[in-house]
């Protein structure tokens, strides 16, 4: 497995977790818990952004692995 495909996998997991957190936050009634969920979802957003940036760099370096 190449580096970029590994990073892609992690990115996919991150996106999945983000989505789950979002669902939880939507349903959660408790304000405090909801805030925690939203705060951490935003953190995941940052991480996902960084990963995507890094991935585009990797794809530039190894164009043969571009795409899925």
């Amino acid at each position, binding site marked *: 497995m190449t*580096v970029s495909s*590994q*990073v892609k996998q*992690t990115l996919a*997991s*991150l996106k*999945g*977790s983000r989505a*789950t*957190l979002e*669902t*939880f936050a*939507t*349903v*959660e*009634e*408790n304000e*405090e*818990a909801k805030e*925690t*969920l939203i*705060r*951490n979802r935003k*953190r*995941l957003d*940052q*991480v996902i952004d*960084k*990963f995507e*940036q*890094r991935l585009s*760099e990797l794809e530039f370096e190894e164009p043969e692995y571009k795409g899925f």
Partner: protein
Amino acid sequence: MPEWLIFLARATAVFLLTLFLVRIMGKRQTSQMTFFDLITAIVIGVLAASFTLNLAGNMTGTFIALLVWTALPLAIYFLSIKFKSVRDVVQGKETILINHGRVLEDKLMEARMTPEDLLSQLRRKNIYKVADVEFAVLEPSGEVSTMLTKAQQPLTPKAMGLQVGQESVPQTVILDGVIMDEALTAMGLNRHWMHEELEKIGVAPENVFIAQVDSVGQVYVDLFDDVVNVPKPKTKELLHAILRKCQADCELYALATKNEKAKQMYTETSKTMTQVVAELEPLLKR
């Protein structure tokens, strides 16, 4: 009128009258009855019985006695709600039996309790060592309430220094195969969502005996068909595991990459992920 008819009429009338009188006396539970409550109850019972059979031979007298024995306790209850002094006299005060781990013998005497009584009451609360008790009170109802010493108290998350997630009450959304719309709307959900969730775990709505939704929307079901094994929702645990894996991945990439900028980026994200995992752990795992 034949005699049996008189009995029938009187018994029915007294039954209804007593029921009515007892209802207006309020709903104190028998388990928290004081001695006085017990006497009142017995007297009312005896009066009702003698009224039915006309034992006293004087119906008006029995009737008045019954009225007095319901009206007076009622009046005293109202007074005792208003005034603490009345309350102390009528319902009795609690007696401290053990304080700072020491048995107060004179108080025990005052409550007419033998040491054996005390020990047996403690045993009923699963306490076999008097030394474990910091404080014990004899309630007016005759029950002993205890507070254990700090070291003997059950372990709580707080004592462990653990943070736990806030969790609201789960809502029961299906009972006996019937979807409870009120509970669903209270959570901001609807029937459509419910059907979707049931489809996910592959059960028909009419097969569900009880379904509950927890605060993050996970569904727990019990089916009429007890042979079928329903998968328990694992989304929370799974999410926690995935987040930890992502965090480990970040660390791994930080170690593996030779690009300085990327290394720094991965280290940063790894830190963020550690924060995320730590903050969500109380919500997802506990």
